[in-house]
């Protein structure tokens, strides 16, 4: 069974070019239903205003970091089951472990290819469906 390509994905990153990079990579994998937010605070606003199926968030952002966003999502009754993919610059043990403990669905290290991104998304979605 393949993953529903019509999944609505929220990209959270303060650097607009980075959002565009991820958007392009998603497009290569067939995901085109994408919304963007520039930090955790903006992301929560989007999440409250429309249904989203999947979150891809950067780790390091002003105002509200990726980890804080993750914690906010996991402690929100309506949002807590949302798949959350964290984008990090390096697989720094402390960061990754903190995210894993906070309930991240998976993480991905920059730079990544469309294939790796696709794999991660499929893995998360499939494990949820199981």
């Amino acid at each position, binding site marked *: 069974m393949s993953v529903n390509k019509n999944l609505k994905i929220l990209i959270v990153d303060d650097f607009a*070019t980075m959002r565009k990079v991820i958007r*392009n990579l998603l497009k290569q994998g067939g995901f085109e239903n994408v919304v963007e937010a520039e930090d955790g605070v903006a992301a929560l606003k989007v999440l409250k205003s429309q249904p989203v199926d999947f979150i891809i968030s950067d780790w390091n952002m*002003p105002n509200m970091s990726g980890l804080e966003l993750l914690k906010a999502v996991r402690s929100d009754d309506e949002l807590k089951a949302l798949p959350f993919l964290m984008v990090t610059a390096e697989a720094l*043990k402390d960061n990754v472990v903190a995210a894993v403990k906070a309930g991240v669905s998976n993480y991905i290290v920059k730079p990544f290819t469309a294939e790796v991104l696709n794999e991660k998304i499929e893995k998360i979605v499939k494990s949820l469906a199981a």
Partner: protein
Amino acid sequence: MDYAELRREIDEMASSFLFLEKKEIDIPTAGQFLNQIETVTGHAETLHAGEINRLAGGLGQLLEKVVLDAVDAAVGFGLFERGIVLLQSVADGYCNAGRYDGSIDGFMGELAGAIGIPLETQREETESATPQAGSVPAGTVAASGKDRVQDESLLKDFITEGLEYIGEIEVNILNLEQEPDNKDYINAIFRPFHSVKGVASFLNLDGIRTLAHDLETLLDKARNEALPVTPELIDLILDGSDTLKAMIGQLRDEMEGREATAVIDTSDIARRIKLAEQGADLPKQPKKLGTILVEEGVINEEELEQALERSQIPPPRKLGQTLISEGIASPKDVSRALRKQAQQVTDSNTIRVDIKKLDDLIDMVGELVITQSMIRQSETLQSLGDRKIVRDISQLASITSELQRSSTVLRMIPIKQTFQRMSRLVRDLSKNSGKLVNVVTVGEDTEIDRNMVDEIYNPLVHMIRNAVDHGMEMPEDRIKAGKPERGTIKLKAFHRGGNIVIEISDDGRGLSREKIRQKAIKNGLIGSTDALTDQEVNRLILLPGFSTADKITDISGRGVGMDVVKQAVEKLRGKMDIQSTEGKGTTFVTGFPLTMAIIDGMIVKVGSERYILPTVAIRQLIRPDRASYNCIVGEAETINVMGRLLPLVRLHKLFDIEPVNRNPWEATLVVMEGEKRSKCLLVDEILGKEEVVIKNLGESLKRIKGVSGGAILGDGNVGLILDPEGLFEMAEAN
């Protein structure tokens, strides 16, 4: 909390493991287990259940490794399964007997083998996920565009956004400089590097990625307080961001089809970052090859500039190559200069000395100079007529003055850093006001006493603010006036006499003679019919309460005008002048003494007392005619000095001394200039001019009016250094 409860927690973990659907630990599952393990180890610790603590902790690390892909998932799964079973039996033991009779060492050994020893200290930085295989020489931009991501629009976005982000760094660095402990500022500088690095890694811009990564690591260390935020570190970050900007700028040039200039060499900055990370003292930026050649007299400035220009013409060459191939410098000269440059980089023959120690040393040398001069003037010694003693004393004199010269030099530093801060300020200010301004600096290597640097900073900042805010026009106005859109502010420093002269010039609108006149008339500073020279008009803006800007901005209009700047400059015994041509620009010229430790003084005698007057404040020495003296009963005494009536201040009256002469036409008058006014000081005699070392009078005598310090004179006696402004105030109070 007791063992039974701890056992329940472990059982719970074991059962959630049993209920795992698939034979694998995915990330969310690992997250759950990690949280459970954290609870268990916490409780085991309070209960002193050592084995449970160790075992659970080991399992936690195993999970972390699995999460980080550092341990094969299947191996991890098997080990975790056995670990949980063992953990249950250890918990059983504690529950039933308060201890575990078996040993967990065998399993722990196996675990350690799988995780890799040492267990705790490892900080895994997995960059192996990086897909690019080809390695680009570290530090240079990969100039070939073929393996770049084809998506040009992404690259364009990156260039625009990247430059914008790095621009933010400069603003935040200024803030950080003021508050080095503020983590928010460090974070704000960290993030742009981080973001640039992230995108650069996708676009295969390895040079940019590497440099941004290095700078990010450096800032991370500063954030974790592993490195102190020093001015050197700040300079390094600024240089780094400049290089990064240049690299992105080069990318843009390439995109827009312009010929690339020279490949940007980042090896130097990379090395400086490495050194800084190791906590080494940051070496100064090595001198440029051209500078060394000019210093050595091999080429002159003009030749250098021309050669530099020609080196830029494609195909770009290094300066040395250009000079040699055009026969301007011999290969020997160039290689010698290159060696000298290399020496600078590796030069570690410097030590850091606390400024207090230097101050003390310079103080003591000052004392030595005085003692030496006392000995030399001793009549007893001179009357001995011993030629050897005379020779030895004169030898002592020359050694002492050499010692004084070289000790004063110790505290001298180049004005460069101050200029760099000024340049940043100009950029920051012009950005806020929407003006386009270039900064040119000349004479950065001019040296000044370290203690003066902080003192001159504020007046200079104010003049810079003034130049940007009031002097510079908006770009559209400049074009209308037929000037280049981008204005220039020039900072220039040089030595003249015992002073450092700092000029701040702009090519802005200049001072409006008419506007200043009108304003001065309105404020009652001059009469409407007064005829003033251009210079006099310009100086009007230095008078208190003068501001010609139509509106008050948050930049310059802070309630202080140029008068405050002038006062600050004069307080440092400096001088200030303005040159301006309407429509062409304005130059502020300020001269400061190189050091605050020595003062050029005029020794005067009143009765049997001797005083030192700062020479900078003296305008004239006169012995007036009887006719120029006016005394009206109930009014102040005045002297007519070339048509100006100046109040007479009797020094003997202020200090209650019996003078030799009471009549001005028999005594000597010193015309002194204070803030806003001049007065004539009546003294008996002028003894001469002398450079004296200023001594503090100590806390208790600090606030005595009219006296700014003391000094030991050449003959060993103490003289008080008088403060003209204080004397004037004393005279006015009487």
